[in-house]
């Protein structure tokens, strides 16, 4: 008799349905909290949802592979979402063309800076080479960064966390930093946060100003392309 709830749990905990529901549910809760705090960057919905789910998994002694069986349906959509980044980029092609030179310069300089500075600082602090590979694409949007790490033999899960932290750090930093620097060009402000902090930075930029958000989205898409192309070469140069 008393076995029944336990048997039900054994069944549910092994099906994708439960963990898919938990993933979406945690996101809804985290998103509500983020909304209630007026999108305070410290209350990042992704980080909150991750902590929430990790606590549930820890509390129910569920392993990550079992969880991922359900969550993989959400995870799969990262690929199509990367492809869909072409849509805003295409829509904004006239803005891109009009500011082409400043964007290209900022893109190449910023992209190289993001990779080299992170790897060098971590290397100085004694982080081993294998982890440096997973750190290098930290400014790139998660699906692309994880793809890059995987192709170069790093650890995509670690990259996912470092990418998210970078997003949160950048979206907290950007507004006070840009104000302190006296930057008034919304295009430049948006572009830099999109490049340094991908989607999380872009979301932050859209809250501040729609033009900044547009440029942040463009920077995120372009930096994903440029980093995917440059990173294998740069890593070979600085890690040898």
């Amino acid at each position: 008799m008393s076995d029944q709830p336990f048997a039900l749990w054994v069944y549910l905990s092994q099906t994708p349905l439960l963990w898919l529901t938990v993933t979406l549910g945690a996101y809804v809760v985290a998103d509500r909290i983020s909304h209630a705090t007026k999108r305070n960057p410290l209350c990042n919905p992704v980080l909150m949802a991750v902590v929430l789910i990790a606590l549930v998994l820890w509390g129910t002694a569920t392993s990550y592979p079992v969880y991922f069986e359900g969550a993989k349906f959400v995870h799969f959509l990262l690929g199509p979402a990367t492809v869909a980044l072409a849509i805003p980029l295409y829509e904004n092609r006239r803005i891109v063309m009009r500011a082409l030179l400043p964007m290209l310069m900022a893109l190449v300089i910023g992209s190289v800076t993001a990779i080299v500075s992170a790897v060098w600082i971590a290397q100085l602090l004694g982080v081993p080479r294998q982890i440096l590979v997973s750190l290098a694409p930290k400014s790139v949007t998660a699906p692309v960064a994880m793809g890059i790490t995987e192709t170069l033999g790093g650890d995509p899960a670690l990259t996912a966390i470092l990418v998210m932290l970078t997003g949160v750090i950048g979206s907290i930093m950007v507004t006070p930093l840009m104000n302190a620097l006296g930057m008034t060009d919304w295009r430049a402000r948006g572009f830099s946060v999109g490049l340094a902090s991908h989607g999380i930075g872009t979301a932050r930029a859209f809250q501040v100003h729609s033009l900044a958000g547009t440029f942040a989205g463009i920077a995120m898409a372009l930096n994903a392309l440029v980093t995917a192309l440059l990173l294998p070469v740069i890593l070979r140069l600085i890690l040898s």
Partner: protein
Amino acid sequence: MIASLTLILFCQLVGEVIARGLGWPIPGPVLGMIVMLAALGVRDRIRKYRPAFGRQVDATGQGLLAHLSLLFIPAGVGVMQRLDILTEYGWALLVALVVSTFITLVVTVLAFVFVSRLTETSARGGEGSSARE
């Protein structure tokens, strides 16, 4: 909507086939993004004759991108398996992230502003000048 989703998946498929087929160290979806850009260009050509062609693609793409942050969560939970790395190198990695993000923000915004002042001395700003289109 299904047609648009098929197009997006098809672009990703083409990207994966190219990346893996040629052994390029570039993620397939990134190449898929380039294929998608080309597809949108072709769509707009066809639209000159059939104005309603492919109108759904924008809405489908926006639907996918609206909750982009949800899509990172499953991978993010994977940190559970990496707690050993984080306890050992967590501080070093955090310092690297904070300092590197700071430098990247400053360098990028300065590069953008510097070049835009050099090249746009006559036509300022990106907002008001869209009347010509």
